[in-house]
């Protein structure tokens, strides 16, 4: 008997961005954003990626979501190499992995009803009828604690926390196995953050989801993830369980991150 492949397998990702030319006849300068990043996520487990601005964490999220093609390396979801798929096959594969963005104000179309926004990934899949899409959208809204009547409203009628619930409902509507969440609570107030974090935890337990959580906030990552990887200048410098990593950091960069968290005691 062979072991099932991991849900997500990221292998030796290298990625370089080309900057605008500085001189007419010189080649444009390259920025090495990621250098040999690799990890796996088993089904139902969650991994947090922590790092500061410029560490490459959002580039990594875009590559895992197959929104950018890496210079080298592979991303396999359920054994399929996402970057080798034909466009049609990639679209079909997207039902298994969805994304939640940081800004709940910018990520929802203000001119569409909430139900249509939530149904969007299903519409992109192209199988479901309009009626079926609508029904699944309402189910997803219920999943995140919103009412069916909320489906016919527009984003501006909701608070930041509720908008993030809508964005999460949109990610859930295709019943994915993996959700990539890039700073999902950092734009929210502290008391609203707690509500959304609890929701993400409930959903993981109820639906067996995996998260790839990108965050600068160590406490949030500790709260939601089974494992953490620290990204620094495009490389994973340390990884482990939150308790091991934040309790006994080995790498100086991890230690600097842990030390920089202001303690909530006087």
């Amino acid at each position: 008997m062979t072991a099932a492949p991991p849900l997500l397998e990221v292998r030796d990702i290298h990625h370089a961005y080309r900057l605008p030319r500085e001189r007419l006849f010189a080649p444009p300068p390259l920025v090495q954003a990621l250098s040999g990043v690799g990890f796996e996520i088993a089904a139902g487990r969650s991994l947090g990626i922590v790092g500061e601005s410029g560490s490459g964490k959002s580039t990594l999220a875009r590559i895992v979501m197959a929104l950018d093609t890496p210079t080298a390396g592979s991303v396999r979801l359920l054994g399929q190499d996402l970057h080798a798929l034909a466009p049609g096959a990639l679209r079909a594969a997207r039902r298994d992995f969805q994304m939640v963005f940081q800004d709940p104000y910018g990520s929802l179309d203000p001119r569409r009803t909430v139900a249509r926004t939530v149904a969007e990934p299903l519409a992109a899949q192209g199988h479901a009828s309009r009626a079926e899409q609508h029904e699944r959208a309402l189910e997803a809204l219920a999943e995140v604690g919103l009412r069916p009547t909320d489906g016919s409203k527009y984003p501006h009628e909701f608070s930041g926390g509720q908008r993030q619930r809508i964005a999460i409902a949109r990610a859930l509507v295709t019943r994915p196995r993996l959700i990539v969440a890039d700073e999902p609570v950092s734009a929210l107030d502290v008391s609203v953050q707690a509500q959304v974090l609890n929701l993400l935890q409930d959903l993981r337990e109820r639906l067996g989801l995996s998260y790839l959580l990108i965050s600068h906030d160590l406490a949030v990552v500790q709260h939601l993830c089974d494992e953490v990887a620290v990204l620094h200048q495009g490389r994973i410098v340390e990884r482990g369980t939150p308790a091991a990593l934040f309790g006994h950091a080995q790498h100086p960069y991890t230690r600097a991150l842990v030390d920089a968290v202001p303690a909530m005691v006087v």
Partner: protein
Amino acid sequence: MLEVSDLHIHLPTRRGMAEAVRGVDFTLARGGTLGLIGESGCGKSLTALALMGLLPEGARATGSIRFEGQELLGQSDRALQRLRGNRIAMVFQEPMTALNPVHPIGHQVAEPLRLHRSLGAAEALRAAVALLDRVGIPDAARRARDYPHQFSGGQRQRITIAMALACGPDLLVADEPTTALDATVQRQILRLIQELVAERGMALLLISHDLGVIAQNVGRMLVMYGGSVVESGPTAEVFSAMRHPYTRGLFAARPRLGQPLGPGQRLPTIAGTVPELADLPAGCPFAGRCAWTQQRCHTERPEATVLHDGHEVRCLRPEAMA
């Protein structure tokens, strides 16, 4: 030095004028440090803007703000301009919006000196370079000629701090000065602000949504909710004995590094959501969301109860939280 009493701010909203700040009182002595903490819409930033005379169009402030005995409310724009950037200076959350992208930074740091101290261009620039050096911009004399986009976010915030310090203000108002920065940079900037406050004997009003930042950086704190100060006191005292249900709720809602919850456990949340300004209850602003709400909480405005050491709480049932 600064005495704010019974400050009320009314704002125009789609549903008419709403009271966004509802009777805020505090004092700040020379060299003192005070933190304002609360969530979006609690009135903390409006309170700071009122001090600077920078309230949004159509807003109306009543009550009293006295700075060195001088009443600031109702002052002309010209009189306030003489204070701003001079005796009272401000550092904002987003340094890129506070800096002018088309002027070299040395010029911008020198500007308040030319404006308020009537220094000549060369002299003001020399002073600006010294300030940039003090806030930790390496090779300040050369870099003074560079533009804001040539600096990192943390360096830009150092530059706005240099600008705020230029005239040696008596009061520095810092509104979320590190929220847009990485954690390791946040720590450096807060340390810089602390050093400068100690070194120059300025008073500091620090506004933040982050309990950790408040705990580590100010001597006294005010917790705001729904336009009111619900709890205030020496920071150490408030942290060791939080008495307002909102303060406790806010503290509990934040996941804590090194103290993970057990399996199946959830973060304690505050029920409901912040009401719109126009819908705030007539009584305690936290009524309805608070687990200890009684009938009278909806109608009676709680007075401040003094616990000890200047620790005050505005709650009709402070004994329930003892």
